[in-house]
């Protein structure tokens, strides 16, 4: 074993929906490796049936989401040299979603929520290809388009992580940035996004504790740039009598 190689201790959760436990394993780690590399070595040398979801190994596909030392992270973006010498690294599946096997969870909750959000509704008098927008008008929405759908924000959000029953009425931070993206879009014509965000997608359940922002591997400022602006837009419509009165007098729909 060269100087650049060393043995590291891992505790990997293995099991399925019925039962499971953390299993200790020691494996070689090389300089410059990430946690996913080491998990692959465990799979190749010691646990050939270890289930792990991965794809790009470049932090862009959002597949290898798991919890490393209790924190939701992408395994491919978690460098081994961030751990102390001799530290045992605990790796578990995402704890907000049903486990399928080992490190693989069922994230279909998110796909159901995605379908509940009405798609972009462009102007009816323009055909696709005729849309014209200025950069300053779309740059806010563009930040949200960086989302790789790793669902780490959904996993860490305590509204559903700690309260299974809330999954029915709460879309989660990933979909609040989707709603914000569309509500801030200069050409979207659907005007009830604020109302439905509050009444159907559970925006009011968010208590802005910013865990979604903390775990986002794309560094999207989910809370400051999407959730809080949407909460303020909801206040404009539902909880601000002066703005409500103004909108009635001026008969203005939405805000230009």
């Amino acid at each position, binding site marked *: 074993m060269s100087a650049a190689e060393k043995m590291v201790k891992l505790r990997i*959760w293995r*099991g399925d*929906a019925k*039962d*499971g*436990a*953390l299993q200790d394993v020691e494996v070689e780690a090389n300089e410059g490796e990430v946690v996913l590399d080491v998990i692959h070595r465990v799979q190749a040398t010691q646990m050939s049936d270890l289930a792990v979801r991965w794809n790009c190994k470049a932090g862009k596909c959002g597949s290898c989401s798991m*919890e490393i*030392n*209790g*924190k*939701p992270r992408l395994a491919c973006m978690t460098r081994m040299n961030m751990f102390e010498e001799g*530290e045992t690294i*605990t790796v*578990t*599946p995402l*704890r*907000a979603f*049903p*486990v399928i096997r080992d490190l693989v*969870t069922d994230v279909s909750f998110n796909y159901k929520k995605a379908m509940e959000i009405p798609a972009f509704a462009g102007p009816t008098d323009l055909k696709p290809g005729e849309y014209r927008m*200025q950069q*300053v*008008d779309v740059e806010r929405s563009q930040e949200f388009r960086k989302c790789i759908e790793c669902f780490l924000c959904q*996993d860490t959000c*305590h*509204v559903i*992580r*700690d*309260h*299974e*029953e*809330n999954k029915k009425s709460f879309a989660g931070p990933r979909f609040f940035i989707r709603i914000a993206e569309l509500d*801030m879009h*200069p050409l979207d014509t659907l005007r009830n996004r604020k109302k439905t965000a509050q009444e159907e997608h*559970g925006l*009011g*359940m*968010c*208590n*802005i*504790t*910013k*865990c979604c922002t*903390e*775990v986002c591997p794309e560094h999207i400022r989910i809370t*400051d740039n999407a959730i*809080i*602006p949407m909460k*303020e*837009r*909801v*206040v*404009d419509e*539902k*909880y*601000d009598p002066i703005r409500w009165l103004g909108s009635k007098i001026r008969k203005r729909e*939405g*805000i*230009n």
Partner: protein
Amino acid sequence: MAGVFAPTRAKIAERTLRTDKWWLQPLITVVVLVSFIIYATIRAFEGKNYFAEPLISPFYSPCLTNGCPDGASLLGQPFGTIAIFGMVISPALFILIFPLGFRMTCYYYRKAYYRSFWQSPPACAVAEPHKTYTGETRAPLILQNGHRWFFFAGLIFNVLLTIDAVLAFRNADGQWGHLSVGTLVLLTNATLLWLYSASCHTCRHTIGGRLRNFSKHPVRYKLWGWVSVLNHRHPTFAWISLFGVALSDVYVRAVASGSITNFYFF
């Protein structure tokens, strides 16, 4: 609390597997906020040593009762002296709700106290102790949506405290053109409060965030950009402006009680 222990989830007995000191930040928040609350409560009920010409404590400005000393009442004295069970209500209590409401409903402080006091959640990926959770969807927390009203009230207080700082360019005899440590203290306090207000999320929304087309509103877009830069630092301004208010009061109290003399540079 099903949550992370729900039947379909990975069977892990621990509430969290985090190995870092996740409890430290909420602990610090509790210690600092409780210390401030205790100090502010004592001072608000004390009802004296809040004015030493030309300095007034931010806890007591504007002083609105007819028990206030001359020169401490920027907006006059619309309230008489009110006593309950023989105890005179301190002038600070007449105005306390506005700065308190602004900070209580502030998006940053909400994060801070929901995490540290209510433990909802205590830290990211650390299971909270509550069985149910409804967030800000019902009373009383739905009232957090009134943050903008406290924001506008807070702006009025910022103007008044700025006037207090300008008036502190006088000496104790009311002559202009003097600068004391107290002047700098009140000036710093007012500046920090303006930074806290200007970096507020509601300010960001009001100034331009609610617009759909920035290109139609170039001036508001520019202002929104500046406020967004400040907004990045909102938590920092929230804390240092809180310390600013407390330390300004400590200074004015020390001067008013005669413990120290307000040093004049000129």
